[in-house]
């Protein structure tokens, strides 16, 4: 039996109860976006590793909206077709066909990869990559990876203008075959970065504009 331990026991119990309540109550934030690691299978096996990593394309080349609009945007098929009107398959496959054709002494045939065929189907091109009036163009329904709750207003422009790297929030996309949710996108994650930036901006000699943690920066 405890001697003089009554208060200790009492507080231990209280703390336990409060902690338990907190854990239960905290479950309410889970549904709104703590989906770190979410990595859905996309309708087209598009590789960010290849495009942004190996080929070194700039993020803003395709996600044009990040500088000029709230939304970075998913590029339309017209953006893809900018390159893929010419590039219809992986380099290895084209090389193999060229070698095969040389070996067989014929003109190399056009090789169309299965994934890019989905793109051509979407824009309504036939086997010869000519517009086919019989086909109805059908946009590609991608799956959204980084998705904020609807009551949050997020605007890419000020973040890009401030010089934040895309990777800071989206992670090393250039290494991802399939895009994966990097940050937890919780409110605390946003707020704590804003706080840090506010402190940085308030430091003597800082040129960056003031960063606010006002509710109405994001919620209206």
């Amino acid at each position, binding site marked *: 039996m405890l001697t003089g331990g009554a208060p200790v026991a009492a507080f231990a119990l209280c703390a336990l109860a*409060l902690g338990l*309540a*907190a854990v239960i*109550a*905290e479950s*309410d*934030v889970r549904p709104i976006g*703590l989906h770190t690691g979410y990595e859905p299978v996309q309708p087209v096996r598009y590789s960010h590793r290849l495009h942004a990593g190996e080929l070194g394309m700039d993020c803003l080349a395709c996600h044009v909206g990040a500088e000029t609009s709230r939304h970075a945007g998913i590029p339309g098929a017209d953006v893809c077709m900018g390159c893929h009107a010419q590039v219809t398959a992986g380099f290895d496959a084209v090389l193999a066909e060229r070698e095969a054709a040389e070996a067989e002494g014929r003109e190399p045939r056009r090789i169309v990869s299965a994934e890019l065929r989905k793109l051509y189907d979407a824009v309504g091109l036939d086997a010869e990559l000519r517009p086919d009036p019989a086909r109805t163009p059908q946009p590609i329904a991608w799956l959204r990876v980084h998705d904020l709750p609807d009551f949050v207003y997020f605007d890419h422009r000020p973040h890009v203008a401030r010089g934040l790297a895309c990777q800071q929030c989206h992670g090393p996309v250039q290494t991802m075959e399939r895009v994966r949710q990097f940050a*937890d996108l*919780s*409110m*605390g*994650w946003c*707020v*704590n970065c804003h706080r840090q930036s506010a402190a940085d901006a308030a430091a003597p000699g800082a040129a960056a504009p003031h960063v606010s*943690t006002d509710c109405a920066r994001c919620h209206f």
Partner: protein
Amino acid sequence: MTDARHVLDEPLIGGAKSAADVTSDVFAPIERRATARWWAGFGVAASLLLLGVAAVGYQVATGIGTWGLNRTVGWAFDITNFVFWVGIGHAGTLISAVLLLFRQKWRTSINRAAEAMTIFAVMCAGIFPLIHMGRPWLAHWVFPYPNLRGPLWVNWRSPLLWDVFAIGTYFTISLLFWYVGLIPDLATARDRARGLRRRVLEWMALGWDGSARTWARHETACVLLAALATPLVVSVHSVVSTDFATAVIPGWHATLFPPYFVIGAVFSGFAMVLTLMLVARKVMAFEDYITPRHVGAMCKVLVFTGTLVALAYLTEVFTAWYSASPPERFVFLNRAFGPMAWAFWTMVTCNVLAPQLLWFRRIRSSLPAVFVLSLVVNVGMWFERFVIIVTSLTRDFVPSSWSSYAPTSIEIATLLGSFGLFFTLFLLFCRFVPMLAAAELKSVLPHGAPHGRHDDATAGPGRNA
């Protein structure tokens, strides 16, 4: 000496009971089968409770719009009921704690039931702040727990948050106080029981064995809890009153409110205790324990607190007049002569005029009259909160937004449901828990040793041999 005391004073318990009599009297109702009257009462109460559950379910599923509120009147039945029930609870604490501290032994017949009433009333009260929320499923946001929002805490400046802590503490302390006092009686019940009932009671009685050491700590704990509960009960209704007193709305914005609300709460609580006791006395055959002396004492409390309430009403009006603030003055003119004057005059009649009848001994000693008056006071005190909340809101500063209020069927059903909950719990309490504090009653039996007078007791061992 003891005899002299008994000559001077009516005995607290009638019928020359022995300790064993007390035990069998107190435990008989919970050990025999329920009476038809109990079933009838329980049926009515449970039906009301079901009605309330249905109404609340419909309201939560559909929207607060199923209440008669509007852009001007954001609170009406909900917070009226909340304040009403919190007030009802106050007499229980007062009887159990304050009277304990003042060594008022007549409390022993009524303290258990009064404490139970407190707990049930606070439960009824607690439902209203919860369901009055537009999104009650997010009610846990009023608690300051660590979270992933930054973390985002709560607004410690909001009286509604104070309410959370006040009501939470009040409920917890009341429950602990009640249960601690109940343990010895649960042990008695345990020792009288067999089978499953005994198993359950063994668990609930926490191994109580009547050891002198435990009794000593038990008494200390009770006194400490009473000492804590006394300022607590004052703070709770003071905090509830700050919901209004800290607001800018004329008719709410009054520094008088904390004492005014506390005294009103005691007033309404004693009325409710009287109502319940007078019924329980008859139904549970406790005439020997709840004697006219108890009723008389409570009537005196009622007339005293009722007069204080009347004083508060007058002070409120005087303050408004003396403030020379036109909106403040208007709100009282509007209460008395505006479109909701009927509610105001109902309040005055029930709370100020009716209790004055209790100055007359003949009325005090007529149990039916007291019963009716206690009901009248209950009604009046409900209207007091309604008048304060609704009439003040309907007509505040900007005349364009003046509005009116009428309850919907859902609100009325919810109010009835809260009574259903209260009486359902109370009837279950009567059925399953010793309704009188048996151990304490035994200690105040005429042959028992008065507290601190063990000389007397040791001097007369053969008195009742």
